[in-house]
């Protein structure tokens, strides 16, 4: 077995990014994601990379735009309020079809909120966040190992589809420590980027990176083309985990730390003879619609366990065409549901309490 290291989720993201070939990091510190920046500050100078603490989040995301334009793997990371500040830049990255990797280690909101874990940026991440029609590929890790493996994956899909890929983690994932096997991470080399502004050497036309279109017909055309590309992403990149769903009459939907808490509750409910399972979306966009739709034929109740006021539950209802009963099991403001709370809702559903 390969040697393991004991890492915080934030450190695992930083190390995995370096393994994925990222040599350019721009950020601005914010709890609970600060270890990403701190790790990069220590590591990048030693490997010939760039770590730059920008003067603001807005500066950092525009530096990402610049490096991505030059064809290099690049990233930034922040926590909820910082991602709001970066949202203009995220929209510009989408408008210019630039690949980038962005990390959001969420904290309680809205506003300055708190520094404890949250999942209440689900809408912001899955619907775009910034202005205009666009999507990001959004990954939701549920272990420190996945913080590493999904970081590598995110760099690859960003390059492949010329999109921003985001890790949407909660503060728990960023702060918790677990053993990680870094040697198992397999990285595909970055593809050729003939569109990048790498210098013409007088051998080709200039490459122009821009999100401004002078003619509305032209802007409409690139929007339609972009959404054709999104269809390919929806067809190819969906990731989820099924847990004890084979005979499940109740389906828990949960991601990140909520999925880990839910697993304990599901095991306790199974011990009591309740047929309950879980679908854990690993990509939040594209959302694993098909698997939810499939189990809507079998399960009578869906319980969405979230650290938010109920955001993913809307996608669960859409995917299942509102054909089942639904319960929201949640804590907010930096609080995490206990397995007992989830178990209580599972038992309520088993008794037909959601109806």
């Amino acid at each position, binding site marked *: 077995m390969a040697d*393991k*290291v*004991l*890492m*915080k989720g934030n*450190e695992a993201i930083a*190390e995995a990014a370096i393994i994925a070939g990222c040599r350019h990091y721009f950020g601005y510190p914010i*709890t*609970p994601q600060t*270890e990403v920046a*701190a*790790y990069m500050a*220590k*590591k990048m100078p030693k490997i010939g990379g760039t770590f730059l603490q920008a003067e603001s989040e807005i500066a950092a995301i525009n530096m990402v735009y610049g490096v991505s334009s030059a064809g290099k793997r690049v990233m930034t990371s922040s926590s909820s309020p910082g991602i709001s500040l970066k949202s203009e830049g995220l929209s510009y990255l989408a408008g210019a079809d630039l690949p980038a990797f962005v990390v959001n280690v969420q904290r*309680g909101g809205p506003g300055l*909120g*708190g*520094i*404890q874990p949250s999942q209440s940026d689900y809408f912001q991440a899955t619907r775009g966040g910034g202005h205009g029609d666009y999507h990001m590929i959004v990954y939701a890790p549920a272990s420190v190992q996945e913080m590493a493996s999904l970081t590598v994956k995110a760099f690859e899909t960003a390059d492949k589809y010329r999109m921003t890929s985001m890790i949407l983690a909660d503060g*728990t994932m960023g*702060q*918790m*420590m*677990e*053993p990680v096997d870094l040697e198992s991470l397999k990285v595909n080399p970055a593809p050729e980027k003939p569109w990048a502004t790498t210098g013409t050497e007088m051998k080709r036309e200039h490459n122009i990176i821009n999100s401004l279109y002078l003619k509305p017909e032209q802007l409409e055309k690139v929007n339609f083309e972009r959404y054709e590309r999104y269809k390919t992403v929806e067809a190819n990149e969906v990731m989820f985990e099924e847990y004890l769903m084979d005979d499940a009459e109740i389906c828990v939907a949960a991601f990140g*730390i909520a999925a*880990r*808490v839910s*697993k*304990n509750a599901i095991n306790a409910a199974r011990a009591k003879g309740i047929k309950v399972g879980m679908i854990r979306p690993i990509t939040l966009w594209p959302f694993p619609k098909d698997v939810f739709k499939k189990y809507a034929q079998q399960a009578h109740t869906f319980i969405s366990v979230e650290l938010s006021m109920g955001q993913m539950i809307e996608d669960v209802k859409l995917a299942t065409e509102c054909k089942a009963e639904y319960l929201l099991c949640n804590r907010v403001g*930096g609080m*995490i549901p206990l*397995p007992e709370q989830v178990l209580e809702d599972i038992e309520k559903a088993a008794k037909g309490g959601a109806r």
Partner: protein
Amino acid sequence: MSVMDYKRITIVCGHYGSGKTNLALNMAYEQKAAGLNVSIADLDIVNPYFRTKDSIDELNRRGINLICSDYAGTNLDIPALPDEMYAVTDRKDENFVLDIGGDDRGALALGRLAPQIIAENDYSMIAVVNMYRPLTRDCLSTVEVLREIEYAGGINFTAIINNSNLGTDTTASDVKKSVDYAREISAMMKLPIIATSADARLKGELDGEIDDLFYIELQNSLVNKEC
């Protein structure tokens, strides 16, 4: 019989995530159990999470006084020090364990107390090392971080504790594999290894295998529970 020879002040320093808080708590527990009047001072200005304050109920139960910023464990994320920190050098009839923040940034908090601590000369300055942390996997990198800590804190280390672990997944073999690492650091820094610390659940497998074992109870936190 403890492997520790406690001085009046035990300063627990080390790299980020080396396990300082768990060690500091257990050193306070042991001194209290031996009948000593001991306080624990949380002087972490780096990390707003995983603080000694998380163990406040256990400390109260054992009758150990906690000196800690009012803001630890709250949503106010500022590098605050408790006003009671001066008790460490003022109350000379009492023992103290100081839980210092990680790396050189954390050791800065020691600077204000360092001259008095050195003048009194009844302290040990412990370097906590963990070879399974990503930035201290080899001896040279570890020594580099420890030197930065000494420079920032204004006190030189007097001893090393090998706390190499992989969290709750640590096996006896993981601990044994770290012995050479600690010995090399000891040779490089010309400092004794006063203990190898390990989760108390490994007692059966480690007893007699390594010298000077110090078994620790891990601090309870939500993340440590099986989920």
